[in-house]
């Protein structure tokens, strides 16, 4: 009798264990569930958002731009990610459908970003544009910028991560303007004016220069001595009201000094840039192998680029796994809670990002 009781007791314990295991397995198979947020006070009729109604996580998420893979739409919307980056598509209609798909039901509209890349045109399947290398005059530069800006405006896009204003491109051989440093600066300013004349944000990149020349082609960051010529196109672009500057991972010394760190992780370099520039500071892609290899892990990369005071963080490489972005947001949230990053600094960037989206912020 007692053996029978013991067996029944074991059966009960095992059944309880089984139920728990089934519950855990189901949880893992469905992944992290992120509910559509209901806390954000955003009045669409007046385009006014109460910043204090957003959680810290949601504000951090606003500072990320990630890849616009359609399967990830709901997760990205529910995380309230700031922007999505779009690559090449077959037709204008495909772009329109994708953009509508992402923007419909979004709690806060996404920034929609694209990268003309100087000579790699995501619209090429239905619209050709001259590459930067082919542009001869400033008038032509303005026209190309304006035409590209018009295409993006028609598609309701927000930011073009272009132009490259590096003086040399020995990797692709077609992504930058040709000429003397002053000619390159003049063409860059004209092109930026062309894009921005259509209401699209242009991005001068890759600060501080010398990023498209190779040291180690595979796994390491590039070390570069920056001179005044490298900075000339950026200074002219700033003087002519470029809206955004993308900071690269190059480890810089010379006319600017990143103090042995990647430029976009250097607080001093970004602070010096901000001393003369009040626009949007954008990182280059943060999942790049060289950057990850420089630090002990990707978490450290993420914290460092936030600490360096960038506004917008490119984290394009999440197509296969949006959990990486979810994790990155958690890592930054922890750093804020530890006091390594101030919440005010996050608020300042988010306010800037929301203003680009045409949203007025109240607190």
């Amino acid at each position, binding site marked *: 009798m007692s053996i*029978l009781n013991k*067996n*029944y007791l*074991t*059966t009960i314990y*095992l*059944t309880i*264990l*089984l139920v728990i*295991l*089934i519950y*855990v*397995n189901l949880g*893992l*198979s469905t*992944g*992290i569930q992120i509910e559509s947020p209901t806390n954000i006070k955003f009045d669409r009729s007046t385009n006014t958002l109460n910043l204090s109604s957003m959680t810290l996580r949601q504000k951090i998420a606003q500072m990320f731009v990630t*890849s616009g*893979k359609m*399967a990830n739409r709901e*997760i990205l919307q529910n995380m309230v990610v700031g922007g999505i*980056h779009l*690559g*090449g*598509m*077959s037709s204008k209609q495909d772009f329109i459908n994708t953009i509508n798909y992402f923007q419909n039901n979004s709690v806060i509209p996404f920034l929609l970003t694209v*990268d003309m*890349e100087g*000579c*790699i*045109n*995501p*619209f*090429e*399947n239905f619209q050709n544009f001259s*590459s930067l290398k082919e542009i001869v005059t400033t008038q032509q530069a303005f026209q190309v910028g304006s035409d590209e800006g018009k295409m993006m405006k028609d598609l309701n896009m927000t930011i073009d991560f272009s132009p490259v204003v590096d003086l040399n491109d*020995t*990797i*692709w*051989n*077609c992504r930058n303007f040709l000429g003397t440093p002053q000619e390159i600066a003049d063409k860059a300013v004209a092109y930026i004016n062309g894009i921005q004349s259509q209401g699209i944000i242009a991005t001068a990149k890759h600060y501080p220069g010398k990023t498209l020349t*190779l040291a180690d*082609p*595979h*796994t390491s960051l590039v070390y570069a001595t920056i001179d005044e010529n490298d900075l000339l196109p950026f200074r002219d672009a700033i003087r002519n009201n470029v809206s955004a500057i993308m900071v690269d991972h190059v480890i810089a010394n010379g006319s600017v000094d990143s103090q042995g760190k990647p430029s976009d992780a250097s607080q001093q370099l970004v602070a010096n840039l901000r001393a003369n520039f009040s626009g949007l500071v954008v990182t280059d*892609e943060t*999942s*790049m*192998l*060289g950057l990850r290899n420089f630090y002990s892990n990707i978490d450290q990369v993420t914290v460092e680029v936030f600490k360096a005071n960038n506004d917008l963080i490119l984290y*394009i*490489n*999440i*197509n*296969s*796994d*949006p*959990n*990486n972005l979810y*994790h990155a947001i958690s890592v930054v949230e922890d750093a804020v809670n530890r006091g390594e990053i101030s919440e005010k600094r996050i608020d300042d960037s988010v306010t800037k990002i929301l203003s680009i989206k045409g949203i007025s912020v109240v607190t």
Partner: protein
Amino acid sequence: MSPKYINLALMMVSFFLIINILITLLFNSSIIPSQSIKRIVNGFTYSLDTSPPKCIFNSSGIVGDIPIDRCCLQIQSQLSCDPINSTEFNFKCYTSKTSERFYLINKKTLNYCENVGFYVNTE
């Protein structure tokens, strides 16, 4: 049925569920589990392939080697990567089929990019 057999069956099912949790925690931190399975397969294929990763950009006949992580970022933004018959390269990646500018990559590069999480449209 004897409680002994019921307990044995419960233990076996529990064992498999525990193994499944361990595998999931070790190899799959994904919100979309099927993508992680693909990543594990790619990772396995990548480690078996001993050839060097190759990625070049052809700009109207001018050819340049592209660093692999920048290559991954770029080919993710292409419209498509189509298989090609070549001894050196396995895929041509482009924003337009008729474009004079395109990337050529080998299988090792494709597997690497997918393994580290980039999406490459090879369909």
